[in-house]
Every structure is written in C-alpha cells, then in structure tokens.
C-alpha cells in the first residue's frame, strides 16, 4: 500500500548524500570520541567527513529537483550555499586547531567537533528547506548547536553570558517565527511552501494577515542574519564566543539564514509561473521590497554607526558584520535574479575576507593578549605579513579596489542601480564611507602609530600564516579576475520552483 511512497523515500536518499555524509561523520565522531578520546582523531575525522560531503556535493552539481515529498529542494541555489557552508566549516575546523582559547584550561574538544558538524548539517538542511516544519527543525538544529558553541569556553564568564543571551533571544525569535508559521498554516491549510503559494494565489485574502504572518516568519530569519531590530544579541555573542565560533556565526550561519530568507520570500509571495529572471511578480499588494529596503537601511546604518564607537576589534567586526547583512539585504530588495546573483557573489567574497580578518585577530590576540584597537599600535612592524593581510581584508571589507570586496560591492550596487533603487544605492555608498572610517582606524593603528616602538617582531607559525594566506590570496586575485565566480553565481540563482 505504501510501496510507492517508500520507493520515493529511498530515491530521495540519493539526493541528500552530502547531508548523509555529514550525519555519518557526526555519529562516527561521537563514537570515536568515546573510544580514542583523542582530539586529533576527532579533528581528522571531521575534516575527512567534510571533504567527503564536498565530493558528494560536486557529484550532484546541477541537480534541480525536490526530495522527500517537497520537504527540501535540491537545486543550484542551495548547492551554492552548501559550498559556502562547507568551506566555512573546513576553515573553522582548521582555525580551531590554532586557537589557544580552545586548547587552553582543559577544554574538552570532543563535543566541539560534534556540534560544529551538527550545525553544518542544520545549515545544509536550512539552505534547501521548502516546508515550514522543515525550516523550523533545521533552524533549531543549527541554533541548538550554536547556543552551546557560543558558550563553549564556559569557564570564561563572558562566554557563558553570551551563550545565555543567545539562547533567550533565540527562543523568543523562534517563538515569533513559529507563531507566524501557524497563522500561515491556519490560512492556507498547508505547510508546504509551494502549496501555500498556490493557495494564496487562488484565494483572495485579508492582506494584513498575510503581512503579519509573513513578517513574523521573516523575523525568525532576520534574527539569524542579525538584521536590525533583531540584532541585539550579536555584539555580545560575537564578543563572548570563542573567536572561531564568532567567525562561523558571522559567515556560515548568516549564509544559511539568507538562503532560507530568499527562498521563503520567493516561493511564498511570488508568482512562480509569471516571474521572469528580470523581475519577479509579486502576488499581492504587500510591498515586501519596501519592507526589506527599510530593514536593509536600518541594518547597515545602525551596524556602521555603532561600529564607529567600538574600541575592541572583535566587537567592531561584529557590528560591521551587521552592516554587511544590511548590504546583502539590498540584493533581495531588488527582487531580480541579478540581485540574487549579487548576493551570492558578495557572500563568497565576504566569506574570504571576514574569516581572514577574524583569524588574524585571533592570532594577534594570542601574542599580545588583547583585542583592543589601542594595543594594535605599531603591530604592523612587529608582524608585517599578518598585518599586511589584515589590512588587505579590511580594505576588502570596506569595498575598495583592487580587492574582492570591491567587486562584491560593485555587483551589488550595480544590481540595485539597475532596478532603479537609486536612493538605496546612495545610502549604501554613504554607509560604505562610514565603514571606511572604522576599518581605517585599525589600519592606522597598525601602521601609522608607534612606527618605531622598539618591540621585537612577533613570531607566528608557518601553518597559521599559510592559513591566512589561503584566504588572502583569493581576496586579491578575485579582485582582479572574478569572472569564474560571477559565472558560477549566475548558474546558481536557479531556485527550484515546484513541479
């Protein structure tokens, strides 16, 4: 009687091989941790699993379908984000190996790898989820891991504090989100995004209800991408978490949040059949683009202005990552495939430069014992290689040529201008100017203050410098030759639109 369904399930298993690889690794690490009690083994297995998952992902490139009775979509769009998540996960795993914070005071690292893998799995599912239940579960899987990870060094007070703050705000936003979902379900009688869309398209609706429920669901995602006004947790959590996790949250978890945000809006509120690549047709009179534009402006402006006053580099990067979320939101505002492409391109470059900056900050913290801007004075001459690379990352985050960040901004602003949102582009550019000031402050302290402070050079291991190089060289190269990334992103804007 259920043969057909079971067969479909078995067929679907083939479509989630990368996720299964992560899951198997997750389980294997749990067992290995019990047997070997050795961090190196855990790390090795985790990296191996991530790579295997990547190989499966490459093998599935171009798939554009849906699996498990429309619970998740396997399409180029989610594939792009999965690559981002995998790359981030790899970087975080390697970066953790260099972190003294984590290898200090008998912090047991076994759970760390399990939780990172669990989080990656949650993000993978989130990137493809097309069902409200699935979205909620994937989001919680990701959140649950990140709550624990952000308080991983719980012996440090600010780390526990960060974790607790994250949990409380996180539960609140999850609550709001699931409330919105239940209203949406009550109106349409379905959890499936495609079904919700067609039901909404076929029936007239009390518009404010759609608006309120949609807004509530979006609030849950906005929390993950730390968009204003759901950003309150960000600075404290970013400052309190181990820096590896801060970097992970600011890139990977943000990427997954954007993936689900884009997919939810596109699948639920836009006419699937009528939309072309140039413009998506909205189904009802709710100006989602304007809502998102307001969100984008508030996010980038607040992020940048508060970042101006920060004296701690880690905290400054936290606020600047809020600002970057604001820029990225502009890409959704325009509601075209070009806008979507610009988000993908920007995210890829953002991954490189943000991770780079965080790693250098971490390495500096090990040597000078501080993340304060004032303690960076003259560090350029004590550690020329790493300071040059940090300069490169900061220049790139500002969006100046010849770095990848410039190309990201260029494509993004290009898409915004192209669709006629001139005022938005102007605000975006003004924000970039503001951001220049605080990024330049770090550069100034590193190179222009205490030029001859007489302190000896700082020694860094070759491996740690190599890791930063691996991120730094592409940041520069993609600033001049970004064609491949553009093409890749162009192919990846296809969202599975239902059968």
């Amino acid at each position, binding site marked *: 009687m259920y043969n057909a369904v079971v067969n479909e399930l078995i067929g679907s298993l083939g479509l989630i091989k990368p996720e299964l690889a992560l899951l198997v690794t997750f389980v294997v690490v749990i067992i290995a941790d019990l047997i070997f009690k050795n961090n190196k083994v855990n790390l090795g297995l985790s990296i191996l699993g991530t790579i295997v998952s990547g190989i499966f992902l490459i093998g599935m490139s171009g798939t554009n379908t849906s699996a498990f009775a429309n619970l998740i979509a396997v399409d180029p769009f989610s594939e792009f984000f999965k690559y981002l998540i995998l790359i981030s996960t790899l970087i975080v795993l390697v970066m953790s190996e260099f972190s003294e914070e984590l290898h200090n005071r008998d912090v047991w690292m076994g759970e760390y790898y399990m939780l990172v893998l669990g989080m990656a799995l949650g993000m993978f599912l989130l990137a493809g989820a097309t069902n409200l239940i699935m979205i909620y579960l994937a989001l919680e899987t990701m959140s649950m891991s990140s709550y624990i990870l952000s308080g991983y060094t719980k012996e440090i007070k600010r780390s526990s504090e960060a974790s607790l703050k994250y949990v409380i705000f996180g539960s609140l936003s999850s609550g709001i989100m699931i409330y919105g979902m239940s209203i949406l379900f009550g109106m349409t009688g379905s959890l499936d995004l495609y079904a919700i869309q067609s039901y909404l398209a076929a029936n007239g609706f009390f518009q404010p209800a759609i608006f309120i429920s949609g807004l509530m669901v979006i609030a849950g995602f906005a929390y993950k991408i730390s968009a204003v006004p759901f950003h309150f947790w960000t600075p404290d959590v970013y400052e309190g978490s181990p820096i590896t996790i801060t970097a992970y949250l600011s890139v990977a978890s943000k990427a997954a949040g954007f993936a689900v945000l884009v997919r939810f809006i596109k699948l639920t509120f836009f006419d699937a059949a009528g939309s072309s690549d140039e413009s998506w047709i909205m189904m009802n009179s709710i100006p989602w683009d304007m809502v998102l534009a307001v969100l984008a402006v508030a996010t980038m402006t607040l992020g940048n202005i508060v970042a101006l006053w920060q004296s701690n580099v880690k905290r400054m990067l936290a606020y600047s990552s809020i600002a970057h979320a604001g820029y990225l939101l502009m890409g959704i505002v325009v509601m075209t495939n070009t806008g979507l492409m610009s988000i993908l391109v920007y995210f890829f470059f953002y991954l490189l430069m943000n991770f780079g900056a965080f790693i250098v900050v971490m390495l500096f913290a090990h040597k000078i014992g501080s993340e304060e801007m004032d303690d960076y004075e003259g560090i350029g001459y004590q550690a020329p290689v790493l300071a040059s690379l940090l300069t490169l990352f900061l220049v790139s985050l500002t969006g100046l040529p*010849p770095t990848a960040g410039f190309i990201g901004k260029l494509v993004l602003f290009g898409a915004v201008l192209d669709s006629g949102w001139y005022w938005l582009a102007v605000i975006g550019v003004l924000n970039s*100017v503001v951001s220049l000031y605080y990024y*330049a402050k770090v550069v100034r302290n590193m190179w222009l203050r205490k030029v001859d402070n007489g302190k000896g050079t700082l020694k860094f291991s070759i491996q740690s410098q190599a890791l930063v190089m691996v991120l730094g060289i592409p940041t520069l190269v993609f600033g001049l030759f970004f*064609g491949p990334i553009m093409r890749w992103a162009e192919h990846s804007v296809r969202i599975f639109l239902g059968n």
Partner: protein
Amino acid sequence: MTALLVTLFLPLLGALLLLFFKSENKGLIKNTALGISLLTFVVSVFLMLGFNSNNPGFQFIYEAVWISAFDAGFRIGLDGMSLLLVMLTTFITPIAILSSFDSIKKREKEYYVMVLILQFAMTGVFVSLDLFLFYIFWELILIPMYFIIGIWGGKDRLYATVKFFLFTVVGSLFMLIAVVWLGYYAGSEILNLSNGFTTNYLVIKELHDRIPVDLQEWMFLAFALSFLIKVPLFPLHTWLPDAHTEAPTPGSVILAGVLLKMGTYGLIRFNIEIFPVASMNYSGIISTLAVVGIIYGALVAMVQTDIKRLVAYSSVSHLGFVVLGIFAMTAEGFQGAIIQMVNHGLSTGMLFLCVGMLYERRHTRLISEYGGIAKVMPNFAVMFAIAMFASVGLPGLNGFIGEFLTLKGAFDSKILGSYWYTIFGATGVIFAAVYLLWMYQRVMFGTVDNPANKNLPDLTSKEWAMLVPIVIFIVWIGIYPNTFLKISDASTKQLVNKIEMIKFNKPAYELPEIKPADKNIKK
C-alpha cells in the same frame, strides 16, 4: 604600444624587485628606485618620439580581455593630453625620489616601494581607456599616499592623512555609482549588449547624445564631485593644506606635481567628453567657483606664516585657473589648462623642493625664522627666485603661458558668455605676485638676524641635480611652448569640435585626415 606597457608596468616591477632586498641595504634600495624611475622616464621619451601629433585620437592602444562578464577590459592608450601628463609623471618621480635620499630617514625600503607603486597608479590613471580600470587605478593611488603621509609625514600626519583619505574616498564612491550606472545604462539601454554592461571608454564617449540630459547631469555631478575634491576646487579644498603641510617633501612634490592633475584630467576626459551638455549647463557654476577659488586661495596664502602652507594655498589658486580654462570649453582654454597643469607640476613642485631644502637645514618652515638667506645661500636664492617667478606667471617663464591661455580662453568663450570670469580671475595673477614676492622678500632679503641662519651651506650637487632639469623645462615652456602645445593641439581641437557641433551645429576647426595606415607613424 610596447613602450606604453613598459612605462606603465616598470615601476610596479621595480616595487616588487625592491621587496626582495634586505632593509639594511639602504644604498642599494635608493639607487635601484632611482634607476628604475629614470629608466621609466627614458622609455617614456620614446613614447613622445613615436607620437603622431596630427592624430587627434588615441594612439598606442592596447586592449586585453580582462573581465568578459562586465566588458571591462584592460584598455590603455594615449592622446595628446594624456601624453603630456604621463611625461610629467615620469619626469617628476625621479626628482621626488632623489629628494627623498636625504629627507626620508626611516623604513626606506617600504617608502620606495610605496613611491614606485604610486607612480604605477598615477601612470595608470592617465592611460586608462576603460572606466573600470580607471577607477581601480584612481583608488589605488590612495593606498601608497595614505602611508607616505601617515608614516613619513610631519607632526600632525595622522590627522592629515585620515582627512585626505576620507575626502577622496567620499568623492570617488560617488564616481563609482556613476561608473556603474553609466556602464549599465550604456550596456543595456543604449547598446543592448548581451551582458548588459560596458565600461569601454572609446565606446561610451561616442554615446553622449543618446544619454538623456537629466541623467547626464546626475552622472556629471557624481564624476565632478570626485574630481573637484581632488583638484581641489573651493570649497572642497580643505584637505589640501593639511596634507601638503604634513607630507614629507617628496610627498608634497608628487601631490602637487601629479596627483592634483588627476582631478583636472578627469574633468576633461570624462566630464566634458562624456557629458558635454551637462558640462555646458554647469560651466557657469563651476567657473564661478574656480574664480572664487583663485582669489580665495591667493588671499589665504597671503596671511600664512608657514612657507609650505603658503605654497599649498597657492596651489588652490593656480588650479582654479586650470578649472576655469577647462570649463571655458574653447581650444585656448583646454590648451591653457593642459599646459598649466604641467606648469603647476613643475613650478610648485620646485617650490616644494626649495622649501624642503630650507627645512632640511633649519627644521622650521616659519617665515619669521628666516631672513637674509640670499646672502648666505646665493645659488639657492637664484633657484628659488626662478621657481617663484614661474609660479607668479612672469613672461618668459612657463606660468605666463598657461595663465594667459586659460584667461584668453575664458574671455573668448561663447559658453561662459561673460568677461567677468576673466577679469576677476586675472586679479589672481596680481595677488600671486603679491604673496609670493612678499614671502620671498621676507625669507631671502634683509639682514641675517637669526644666528641659526648664519652658516647654512649652499646647494649641494644632489640638489642641483634636482633643480636644474626643472629649470630647463620651465624656461623651455616659457620661451617656446609650441613643442608642448603641438602635442595636445589635435586632441583638444577635436574635443572643441564635438562641443561646437552640439552647441552651434558646426565644427570650429578642420582637422587633417588621418589615414589608418599612418596612425602611429611620425610624419
């Protein structure tokens, strides 16, 4: 073409080469940097020899595919206007490097790397035939300049460098918006290219009559803001005195000599060429600001107590002439503007060198600290006088030619349509004479009151080597400017024709026919 590529990339290769030297090897580093910049100058002379001045278009064009998705290419080339400015760059840089030998005493390796990168970027700005490439070079300038002022500058260097950086970036980001907007508009609305985007300057400059006027005006303003900050035009000039005062001597020389010209060059190349109608509409406002700047700069220069600051304000005044000449939009105006850019580079550069020489000896720039220097350093007094008179605009020296042509251009301009610009602008010449001569008198003449000034050594051979080449060109342009005017003649006439065609429907000049075959061959 090869010569152009070499001129562009040689400094960059030099900078990379320097990275491999040991920091302790100061002599080798200095000499290598100087050698590379001299070699670049020699190569650029071949450019000048190979240039066909009858051809109004671009020569030595080199195109390479770079980013096909954007139709942004590595496109470079020269016309008469840019050739002169490239020559100015390659000429000033070795002199600036030579002057660094004594004035830069810390972190020499990093310094010379920065200067060479700066030269690469400056040359790049003048040869780019692609808006995207141009923007990249334009921004690239900031990085070495930021460090040169910030690390090797004076007491308040941090304030000055941050101010310089912020002013310039604000402007250039607006230019970026305009570049992207223009690229999309040209690519998708006008040309319907498959990728919907192009930044090819040679294509875009022919599209001016197909861009609606209101759009032209917005883009014009965005470009103009960026360029006018760089020039700098009153009231956007406030970064300049600080940057000049705090920069080390060679930094000031390059800043005054070349960097400011990027702004005026950009105005001609992009604002006038691409948005001629918008330029005409705004010519009155900008010319008025230019005249205000001429007078304001002169008046403020008069009350300065610091010699370097005085020279800095004189730059504001002199660049006003250039802007006035450009927005007169006549052949004399353009020619005058271009030759005045070169002049200002030479004479103000030389003034900064002279101030630097005084500073090296006395470690102060206050006018009141000096007096009677002419008795102690007679040779220096002569050289300083030449630089000063060139800057004043004494007939027979270069400054006169430039100022005369720009003022005449503004006088004859049908687009400005009023004599008042010229009349007020001309007062700037008189003011210049007043503040420069007064400064000279206070520093050089009188009795040697200050005992510290009694035993100052006269010019060293190194200093002679810096000043004499500049003097040669100052006199050359002053006596026989045609050598240089001829180079940019055809290009400016073509530009004027374009403007006259729009305004009066007939070209103003007849240009010789250029056969494709002899495009690059000198006649």
